[in-house]
């Protein structure tokens, strides 16, 4: 690439950083627009009360600059105890669960929390250019110190940068891709040089989930199928019982996968890859729609889609999701919900269904820019960026 090309590529990369964030009720609006277009005579259907998200983000919160809450979140539908309670800041209500950290590292790269390690540190990656992680760190939450684990190589040509960082057995593993294959990498949490564990020809197919378990990297691909390779290298082999399935969380794999069209709620069928135990979710009852399942429970809506609820996979223990609340990933967690706090200004709160507590997350105007709490894959941590720094919420510390 010559000088002008290099500069162009750099300019485009930097310009992309200035792009707008996804405006809030994107999915509802798309759904509405799609339906309106499909049948223009059809009256506009009320926006959904609930949007389930597989990628770890909640959407459907509030118009970017209209300051309006969604129609389905009208005050009359919300228990008055909730709406009238002034929400206290989360750091006041659950101080033991809240950490604040800098938004950037010393080189100005944006810090992106991945997951909590369990011993007071946080796995973090950092990037300059969106979705091009350059470095992995462990962040000491109490001490406020970053320790570098490893630098991440840059992908070649049409390859995909490092993704799906997953911890287990003292290592971090992730994958990158080339045009026709995926590469699996690992590095000890104590630090060192990233090591390519294996390369697996997929003909362009991507990985949809990856975990470290049983001394191996276990992963599944978008078109289905669970594979594993020993952490110290060797052959990539299909996992017994994992044929056609998608990894949810070890040892569970199932179908349909999160990204697998056509219809069917994700993970209604689950297989325990270790024991062979099969769990098929109880089917939706008359008129209800099953949206998605986790290891413990499924999320569904009532006929017409007006209300959402969770039930255990066997169909028992139905629990209503209060109207107007958004359900963060993973859908299996049936305790924490996100909602807009005010009808006249942007602002997001977190609601604990178990105790009925609503707290102010401290996301104010940032909500209008599309900032929402993002959970890790295990649903243990939530993180978001505000003007006063990055918040990390350890949900497991909320009694």
């Amino acid at each position, binding site marked *: 690439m010559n000088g002008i090309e290099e500069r162009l590529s750099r300019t485009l990369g930097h*310009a992309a950083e200035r792009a707008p964030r996804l405006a809030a009720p994107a999915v509802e609006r798309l759904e509405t627009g799609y339906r309106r277009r499909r049948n223009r005579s059809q009256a506009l259907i009320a926006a959904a009360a609930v949007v389930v998200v597989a990628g770890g983000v909640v959407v459907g919160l509030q118009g*970017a600059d209209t300051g309006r809450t969604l129609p389905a979140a009208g005050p009359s539908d919300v228990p008055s105890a909730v709406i009238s309670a002034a929400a206290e800041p989360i750091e006041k209500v659950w101080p033991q669960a809240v950490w604040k950290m800098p938004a950037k590292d010393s080189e100005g790269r944006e810090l992106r929390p991945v997951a909590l390690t369990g011993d007071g540190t946080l796995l973090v990656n950092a990037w300059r250019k969106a979705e091009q992680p350059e470095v992995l760190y462990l962040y000491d939450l109490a001490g406020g110190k970053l320790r570098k684990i490893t630098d991440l190589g840059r992908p070649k040509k049409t390859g995909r940068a490092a993704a799906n960082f997953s911890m287990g057995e003292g290592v971090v593993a992730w994958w990158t891709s080339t045009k026709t294959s995926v590469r699996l990498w690992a590095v000890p949490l104590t630090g060192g040089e990233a090591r390519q564990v294996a390369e697996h020809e997929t003909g362009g197919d991507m990985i949809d989930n990856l975990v470290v378990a049983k001394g191996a990297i276990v992963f599944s691909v978008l078109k289905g199928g669970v594979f594993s390779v020993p952490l110290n290298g060797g052959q990539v082999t299909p996992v017994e019982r994992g044929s056609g399935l998608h990894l949810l969380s070890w040892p569970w794999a199932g179908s349909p996968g999160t990204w697998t069209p056509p219809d069917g709620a994700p993970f209604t069928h689950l297989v325990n890859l270790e024991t062979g135990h099969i769990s098929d979710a109880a089917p939706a009852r008359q008129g209800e729609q099953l949206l998605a399942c986790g290891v413990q429970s499924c999320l569904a809506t009532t006929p017409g889609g007006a209300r959402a609820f969770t039930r255990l996979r066997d169909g028992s223990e139905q629990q209503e999701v209060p109207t107007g609340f958004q359900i963060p990933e993973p859908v299996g967690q049936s305790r924490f919900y996100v909602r807009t706090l005010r009808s006249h200004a942007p602002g997001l709160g977190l609601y604990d269904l178990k105790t009925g507590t609503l707290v102010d997350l401290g996301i104010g105007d940032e909500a209008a820019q599309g900032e929402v709490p993002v959970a890790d894959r295990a649903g243990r941590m939530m993180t978001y960026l505000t003007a006063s720094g990055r918040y990390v919420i350890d949900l497991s510390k909320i009694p």
Partner: protein
Amino acid sequence: MEADPRFAGFVAERGDALLRYGYVLAGNPHDAADLVQEALLKLRASWPRLRAKDNPESYVRTTMARLHTAAWRLRRRELLAWDPPEHGYHDTLPSEDEQAMWETLAGLPRKQRVVLVLRYYEGLRDEEIAAALKISRGTVRSQASRALDKLRSAVGEHIGEGVMSDRGERR
């Protein structure tokens, strides 16, 4: 109203990346949002027909590139009013040099700009660009070379020429 959770998930997970791509394609947040919205509506319409092997992201990206070249008129606002914020977190590009280049890009014919974005932002090879835009490889090359000439004359060539490296990466 039921939104397919997988479609919702796709939009949530990839929405921001698609907006970034739309932004470098279109050059401003409003058209970026319109492009993404239009492409996602098409994806939503064909979602039930997508097969497991189809990659929704590449479908959307290809749709966006095609829409942008096809003298696509912005018929959108009646529809969804996406309302993007006026700008992201950073107001200007880090260097004057890049700002000048960004402004020059805004003056390029659409097809030339799209070819540059596919080559230097998406990291596609010329034959892949040709396939995405349904044009010949020769046209890709000539459009790219014309566009690069314009950039060169607008912002000047740099010293440090001739350093060969891989092209930009897909993101």
